[in-house]
């Protein structure tokens, strides 16, 4: 196969130019990457475990999370909906989390009941040290997959949002 000097140069320019563009792209990406651990969180001290009675949901503003107790177990549930990130409020009358954006519903343990969310609500690990409850907001555990519900999914009263159409 004939290859002229011009072909070689052309190939060289193409490869070189391609590499240059790739390098520029990669450099820009690294330069503009989000700063590490922006709002990463840490260990947040809470009250003693008995301060959170069965069926209650207490909002912890600093951690943007809820502490709930259901079936005797304590849960630290991130307020952010796993679907698209809306802040999910706790509905006192139904005893469930009801997302205002697309109508996903979760029980007090953050497990998925209905709606478009791809999983249950994400959670933070809890531990008890010296009689006080500690929540680690730096660690976020993915919510339970759909259909793996351990706790009751029934509402204890009327919903705060109207029932979704579908």
């Amino acid at each position, binding site marked *: 196969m004939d290859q002229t000097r011009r072909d070689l140069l052309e190939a060289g320019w193409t490869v070189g130019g391609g590499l240059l563009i790739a390098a520029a792209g990669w450099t820009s990406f690294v330069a503009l990457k989000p*700063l590490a651990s922006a*709002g990463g969180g840490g260990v947040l001290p809470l009250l003693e475990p008995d301060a959170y009675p069965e069926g209650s949901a207490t909002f912890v503003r600093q951690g943007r999370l809820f502490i709930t107790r259901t079936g005797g177990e304590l849960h630290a549930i991130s307020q952010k909906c796993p*679907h*698209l990130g809306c*802040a999910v409020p706790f509905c006192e009358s139904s005893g469930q989390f*009801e997302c*205002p954006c697309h109508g996903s519903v979760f029980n007090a343990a953050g497990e998925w009941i209905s709606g*478009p969310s791809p999983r249950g609500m994400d959670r933070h690990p809890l531990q008890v040290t010296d009689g006080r409850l500690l929540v680690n907001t730096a660690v976020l555990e993915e919510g339970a997959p759909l259909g793996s519900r351990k706790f009751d999914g029934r509402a204890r009263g009327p919903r705060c949002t109207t*029932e*979704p159409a579908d």
Partner: protein
Amino acid sequence: MPATETDRPPVPRRGLMARLRGSTLYRSVVRTPGSDSPSGRALHAFGNVFLHIYPVRIPRGLLRFRSTWRLGFISSVLFALLFITGLYLMFFYTPAVSMAYGDMQQLRAQVGFGQLIRNVHRWGAHLMVLAVVLHLVRVFVHGGYKAPRQFNWVIGVGLLVVTLAYSFTGYLLPWDQLAYWAVTVGSGLVKYAPGVGNVLRDFLLGGETIGQAALLRFYVIHVAVLTVAFALLMAVHLWRIRKDGLVVGDTGVAHDVTARVDDRIALPAAEQADGVARLDDSRRVLGVVHVDEVPGRSRDPDDEVFSWPALIIRHQVIALAVCALVLALGIAFEAPLRDIANPNLTPEPSKAPWYFVGLQELLAHFDPLVAGVLAPGALVAALVALPYVDRNPSRRPADRKVALVLFWAVFLGLVVLTIIGAFFRGPGWAFVLPWEHLYFEP
């Protein structure tokens, strides 16, 4: 003004204006003063940097309003309006979480015409999305994407994407509840892109949540990145419109001008006779394309008119009408400003801007990967691929039944989804009747 086809000697004028126009200073600025003669009209368009964007002569058919509905021109008028009002707003806006909302209130309360300018910017932006979409529909229906205009259609799709990106990034800047949650939902979609979703979303927001980094990024993208992109695409778009023989507007059969150029490059008989192709001689390459072979351009000089004044006056009238409409909207309707953004409280319901609300409606029925990533991705990909897939050269509606039916089906589907999402959805995305309670804020 009846056109006389011969150059008349200039009629001597008297008075102050005439003396001014005769002065050396005036003549050094306006080098080609218009006259009613054909050459005067040609020079007026040709010798002015701003009018130079127009060809000197255009096919008469282009003067008909319905040849283009002037939608591309209206889009560019709106862009100019948004550029000017945006510059004004930049003097009063700080892209900082602690300042942005306060700046909005200050704009409303203290800055002269501040609220009006903001209203004009907001309604102008909505109208521009509408105008760009309608322009796309018009070009499709007229078959304007067919050869040789395939690539200009792709550029146009790029301009549509940039317009939507403009709207979306601008939406966050007031830093109110409307802004914060619409962008939360919108950027939440990005994370469903397979593989790269989370990285891409964090890159766009500068972190995991919408905060200071996100506001600054959106601001820089809105005022600088997109403006450069828009200007470049616009320049290519307009340049190609002229190179491809202006507008079609008819429903004839598309000519493939690219094929003709190739033929001629292979052809020049004189050069081939002596066995030497001199096409690298730039003066000869200029001769390769004859103006009269560009399709859409009338070969009959009697069927052409001068851009100045025929087309340019029409454009000026339309530009004035667009400005008047946006100003009227700005006076009549306030741009919404809700409470300051609160990451702990999602308002009910949280809706995306109207042009994305159809997507949000789709989200209520499908997996986010399908509704939020694959569906819009496929739509843009289909638009880009359209002129290369649809090889049917005819622009007559009767010959394009499949393309037209498909197009209208998708378009009407989007319109229906948007109407349902905008007017028939309430808290928790539950179905509501708009005449009972309207949950919609533009």
